[in-house]
């Protein structure tokens, strides 16, 4: 691929990304239909559940570290959060736990 072709490829990816992000705003410029407003309000918890699954999609339960570091990291995050409700602390605790397990044990 020449440099011009490479830059065109990158630009195409950029245009696709902006289009996807802007599509709902372009489609519903004036009055948003009630159904779409409902979807917009009802979606967030479903999206976050989907994102958690998406983040964990490459974890294999049958090979490598069997997902143990990730499971431990999730547990620490959830417990810390239920206990202290300090977002940064929960995230840091879970991440450090997962990193230590991955780097030193598995």
């Amino acid at each position, binding site marked *: *691929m*020449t440099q011009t072709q*490479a*830059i*065109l*490829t*990158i*630009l*195409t*990816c*950029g*245009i*696709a*990304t902006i289009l*996807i*992000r*802007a*599509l*709902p*705003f372009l489609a*519903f410029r004036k009055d948003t239909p009630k159904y*779409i*407003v*409902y*979807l*917009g*309000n*009802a*979606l*967030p*918890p*479903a*999206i*976050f*559940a*989907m*994102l*958690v*699954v*998406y*983040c964990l*999609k490459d974890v294999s339960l049958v090979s490598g570290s069997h997902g143990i*570091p*990730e499971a431990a*990291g*999730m547990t620490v*995050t*959830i417990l810390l*959060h239920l206990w202290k409700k300090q*977002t*940064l602390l*929960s*995230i840091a605790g*879970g*991440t450090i736990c*997962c*990193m*230590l397990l*991955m*780097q030193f044990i598995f």
Partner: protein
Amino acid sequence: MNRQSLDTLKAALPHTIPVMTGYIPLGIAYGVFMTSAGNPFWYPTLTSIVIYGGSLEFLTVSMLAGPFNLLQTFLVAIMVQARHLFYGLAMLEKYKGAGYRKWYLIYTLTDETFSINCSADIPEGISRYSFWECISRLDHIYWMTGCTIGGLLGQIIHFNTEGLDFVMTSMFTVILLNQLLKEKGHISAWIGAAASLLCLLLFGRDSFLIPAMAVIVLMLTVFRKPVERSGDLS
């Protein structure tokens, strides 16, 4: 910087710390990956501005190594980024009155920025649009910084960040947990989890997102009455 924007920055910055810890190392990793594939050092910076979407940027590396085909590139990019449709839908009403800021807010609507802007409580006395813009700009700066450093480092330095990407998983988990603690019915969260897991099993990790999104929309439509009645709507 005037008083008001300083207050906004003070309110916004703490929310973006997890994103910073995620974006900078991830950006560096991506930058190193991109340049070590034989691309110029400024490509990561370029993609961080033009594309600004982690997974697609990683994918660009293999696209650049393949044949030149803009239509295919466009279709793949649309598929990879499809989940961003949901963010636009969820922020539709919130961003509506943002005026000239709206297009920057839309352009920078990444997974992480969406997560914060969708869920953060905005302190009193601070304009929500300035707050959201500040979050979006900080996140964008972190990502550009990481990518640029990575591009410059190239193959020179190797460091062990294994497991650091869990910071994003952990952040989404905490936000999900906050949503669950706030609402009563949890119908939407259950639908999201069940649809995603089911589609992951059925379609595999590379192509489960789009069917999962379709199932989520379908189920939310079918269960509209109970969801509305449970009062879980944000």
